[in-house]
Every structure is written in structure tokens, then in C-alpha cells.
């Protein structure tokens, strides 16, 4: 099958979509700003003082919309890229970055801290978000490490066993989070919901840095494993016979995904379906070759997450929906469509 779209056409289209999404994400919200003013404000922030903009506009763009947009870009790109990595690792186009337990582990880590803070521990309020993010990140890594350990046998990583271990630990984490939810009071419940359904609300520059470091790492490193991922699709033995150190590639893919998704969940909570649907959609458009698929997924992931966030902000404005609801509402039917389509 030839790809539906040549990458020379698709890449500019995706880049244009991404720019449009960024622009809209900066301009729209409870207070809608004129598109031109948004651009001017953005130029002012970057130091190009060409024209005057209302101080309020500049403040909204620089302090609220820009960090939120950057957060959305990075979370979307990281989720989509790690989704590609997991689908390659498991040789299954229906795999999801959450499969290895990292998302639910991160949500569990965050939930523990939320409940702990509300009941037993008191921390200076400024520290709370950091502790929360750190706990989410650590939870994700811990559960992934456990899944990885369970999948090891005779010095080899059995991806099928890992998959089952991931499902089991995801269910266990879900049960513990459910228990917390059951026991929680009203305000704790709201915080828990936030983590389990995700939101880009409350983004600030100081909380962007950890994710930025991880996201740059993932964006730099994963495309360099495109050939290995292609070979892995043939089968692990085949990849080994083509000269790849398969055990090392698997370790690196798992580590990369754990770090990436851990950081993404720590920053924005659990956002489902992006890591599943975006790579799938891009594969339909450019084909399964990872050298083309990875960059396309990163661009599309960033753009689609921003658009989903716009929907989350605008549909029930001035209130906000958790973005996870939007991605699931759009992603799940689309996924079912894909299933029906592939069957026919």
C-alpha cells in the first residue's frame, strides 16, 4: 500500500495545523483576544517590540496562555511519540503508552500525595505542586520498573508477559485510586478527578522545565531509533539478525516511554487516547516507516492536544472540562471507527 499522503505534502500540512493550533490556543479562552493582538503580544514577549499592545493582553498571553500552550505542545508530542514507541515495541498498532503501567502508576503517585496532603501531611503551599509532580513521576517510573521486572526471564524481556503485567498493575493502581476516591472528601475528590482526567489548567513556566528537559530528550532520541523500530516490526529475532542489540533497544524504549509519559502525566494528569490514536492516524497517512511516522506523530500530537484543550476551555466556558474527557469523547469513537474499517 502506498501512503495516502506523500510526506512532502503531509509535513507542511501538519506544521500549518500546528501553527494554527498554537495561534488559536493563545487567542481563545474565557477572555477572547483579537488574533492580531495575540501575535503582537507574542512578538513583544520574544523581545521584538514592534507595536503597542494592551498590557492586559500581553499579560494574559505571556502568563496564562503561552505556558499552557507550551505544556499542551509538549504533552501532545511526547504522548504521540511514546505511543509510536510502544506500538513498535509490542508490534501492535493498538498499543498505548499506558500499557506498561506508567500512566496509572503516575496517577497513583499523585493520588497518594493528594490524599496524604489532605489527611496527614502538611507542606508549605508553594511546594505542593512540585511534590505532587515528583510523586506522579516517581509513581510512573516505579510501576514501569515493576512491569519490566515481571517481564524479564532468562535475561530476556518478554513483551507479552510485560503486557499482561502492565494490565494487572494498571488495574491494581486503578483500584487503589478508586479506593481513595471513595474515601475522599469534596475538595480532595476534585483534585483526584483532575489527575485522572487531565487538564492543562494551571500551567506555569516553573512547572514546565522538567517536562521540557524530558520532552527534548524524547524528541531527540526516539527518531534516532527509527531503523531499530522498523526492524522490530519484523520480529525480535529478525531485528537481532539485522544487527540490532534488541535487548538494549527494548530497555531504551521502555525507559524513554516511562520518562516521557511520567513527566507528561506529572504535568497534566492522565490524558488518554492521544498516544493511541495519533500514531494510528499518522500510520494511515504516511505508512508504517518510523523514519516518517515519528516526526509526523510529534507534530500531529502537539496540534491535536492543543485543539482538544481549546474544546475543553470553550465548550463549557467560563468553566473548564478536564481535557481527558474531550480526548476520550473524540478518541474512542474514532478508535471504534478504525476497528470497523480495518475489519472491512
Amino acid at each position, binding site marked *: *500500500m*502506498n501512503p495516502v499522503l506523500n510526506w512532502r505534502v503531509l509535513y507542511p500540512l501538519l506544521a500549518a495545523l500546528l501553527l494554527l493550533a498554537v495561534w488559536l490556543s493563545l487567542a481563545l479562552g474565557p477572555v477572547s483576544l483579537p488574533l492580531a493582538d495575540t501575535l503582537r503580544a507574542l512578538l513583544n514577549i520574544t523581545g521584538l517590540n514592534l507595536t503597542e499592545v494592551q498590557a492586559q493582553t500581553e499579560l494574559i498571553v505571556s502568563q496564562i496562555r503561552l505556558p499552557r500552550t507550551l505544556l499542551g505542545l509538549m504533552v501532545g508530542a511526547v504522548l504521540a511519540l511514546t505511543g509510536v514507541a510502544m506500538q513498535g515495541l509490542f*508490534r*501492535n*498498532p493498538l498499543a498505548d503508552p499506558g500499557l506498561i503501567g506508567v500512566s496509572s502508576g503516575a496517577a497513583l503517585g499523585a493520588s497518594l500525595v493528594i490524599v496524604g496532603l489532605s489527611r496527614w501531611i502538611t507542606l508549605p503551599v508553594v511546594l505542593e505542586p512540585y511534590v505532587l509532580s515528583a510523586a506522579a513521576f516517581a509513581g510512573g517510573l516505579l510501576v514501569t520498573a515493576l512491569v519490566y521486572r515481571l517481564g524479564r526471564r532468562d535475561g530476556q524481556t518478554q513483551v507479552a508477559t510485560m503486557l499482561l503485567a502492565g494490565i494487572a498493575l494498571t488495574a491494581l493502581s486503578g483500584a487503589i485510586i478508586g479506593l481513595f476516591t471513595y474515601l475522599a472528601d469534596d475538595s480532595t475528590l476534585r483534585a483526584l478527578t483532575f489527575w485522572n482526567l487531565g487538564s492543562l489548567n494551571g500551567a506555569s513556566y516553573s512547572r514546565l522545565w522538567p517536562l521540557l528537559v524530558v520532552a527534548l530528550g524524547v524528541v531527540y532520541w526516539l527518531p534516532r531509533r527509527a*531503523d531499530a523500530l*522498523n*526492524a522490530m*516490526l*519484523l*520480529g525480535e*529475532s*529478525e531485528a*537481532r*539478525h*539485522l*544487527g*540490532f*542489540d534488541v535487548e538494549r533497544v527494548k530497555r531504551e524504549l521502555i525507559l524513554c516511554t516511562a520518562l516521557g509519559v511520567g513527566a507528561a502525566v506529572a504535568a497534566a494528569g492522565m490524558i488518554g487516547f492521544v498516544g493511541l490514536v495519533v500514531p494510528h492516524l499518522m*500510520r494511515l497517512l504516511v*505508512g*508504517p*516507516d518510523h523514519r516518517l511516522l515519528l516526526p509526523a506523530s510529534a507534530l500531529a500530537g502537539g496540534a491535536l492536544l492543543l485543539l482538544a484543550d481549546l474544546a475543553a476551555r470553550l465548550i463549557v466556558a467560563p468553566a473548564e472540562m478536564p481535557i481527558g474527557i474531550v480526548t476520550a469523547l473524540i478518541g474512542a469513537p474514532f478508535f471504534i471507527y478504525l476497528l470497523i474499517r480495518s475489519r472491512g
Partner: protein
Amino acid sequence: MLQAQQVSVARGGRCVLGDVNLALQPGQVLGVLGPNGAGKSSLLGVLNGELAASSGQVLLDTQPLASWQGRRRAQRLAVLPQSSSLSFAFSVEQVVRMGRMPHDTGMAMDEDIVNEVLRAVDAGHLAGRSYLQLSGGERQRVHLARVLAQLWPGADGQVLLLDEPTSMLDPLHQLSVLDAVRRFADHGASVLIILHDLNLAARYCDQLLLLGDGSVQACGTPEQVLQPAHLHRVFGIEVLVQRHPERGHPLIIAR
């Protein structure tokens, strides 16, 4: 040159292959025969580094196979497994091009090689098709093209290991594919091929290795190995061995 020195393989505490000695000679095709469970795939596994030998060693040139760096090894040794689990919609051309991954020969040359190997296995017309739309036999030929591309055009010192490359092919393609393998070996590469069809083995192999119950039951030229007594002992079949009227190699007929 790939050689096995007194190699044994144990799986789950049971010895599945005992004390095998063999050396793959340049330019020769070695056929491995034996009933199901005789240890053919274990032999292939230990020769390609997938299985560890419980005793003895496998050498590529004079160096243990396990100590070869992956990419350098892949430039010398290619392996065709019995079946493939590829379930992504690569084009046939992309699948075959993956065989060139261990090499840095450049796009233009890789493209020439891909075209040549596809023609060699009579799959040139499939180049632009999606792998997933192919039949089982077509897929098998595409994977053979991929491992041929990995070593193409074949030279002294290179080793090709094939696990039942004709199991899903129609009669015409069984012959044309093995002809291609034969021509590839004629360029100097050593080939080991697991086969079930005794007559194909007699027709295309220089040497045969008959495995039964995890050990070598007979080894030598097709004339030496394909004898009624050996075949009765290993397969439990009664056969007549005649001579091919035109080509002269043994012809096995079940009684």
C-alpha cells in the same frame, strides 16, 4: 566460515541436540533433514546465536559467534525464520530494503539490490504492493528476498541460514526459489537450508545432514545420506531410491 564444534543444546533440562560437528563450506549448500522434533530448528537456533550452546562452541571465522558485534555479524550472517509475524502495512520494497540496514551502501545501490533480489525470487512484480495483501507464499518469497539483500550478491565468507524457505510455495516457485539460492551459493557464500522435501534436497544440496532424536544420523553427499536404510531408521518410511533420469541425483519414491 561458520562452524559448530561438538555443540549440544539443552532446553528445559532436556538435551534437544547432542554433539553436532559441522562446518559450512564456501560455495556449498548444506541441507538439513529430519522428522519433526529432531532438533533442526535447535541446530539453526544455535548456529544463528538465538540459542546458547550448553556445551561446545559456534565459530564465525575463528571467533565465537557471540563475541561478534551485532552489525558486523549481520553483514556476514543472514537468517530466514520459518514464519514472520510482520503485521504492519509496509510495501514489499520497504520490507526487502530492511535487509540493507546493516550496510551503508547508499540509497541508489540499495535500490538496485532490492530490484535484483526481488527478481531473483520472482517477486519483481510485487515491489509496490502492500506486504499485508500478499499470500503466504508471496510473503515467504519477500522475506527470502530480504535476507538475500542482506548479503547480496554473495561472497566467500558469508553465511545464509534458511529454515524451510519453500514450505508455502507452489511447485514452480519451490524450484525457482531454490535455483536462486543455488546461484547465490555459487558466488561463494555458504548456505544451510532446512528442508522437508527429500527430492528437493537431493536436487539442490551439495551435502546433507540427517538429524534424528537430536543427533546426527548421517552426513555426506546426497548419494551417501539418502539411502533406504537411513531414511527408514530416521523417518520410519519405506522408500525406493532411483536415479533422476536426466540430472543423475537420487530420486526418492515412497513404496
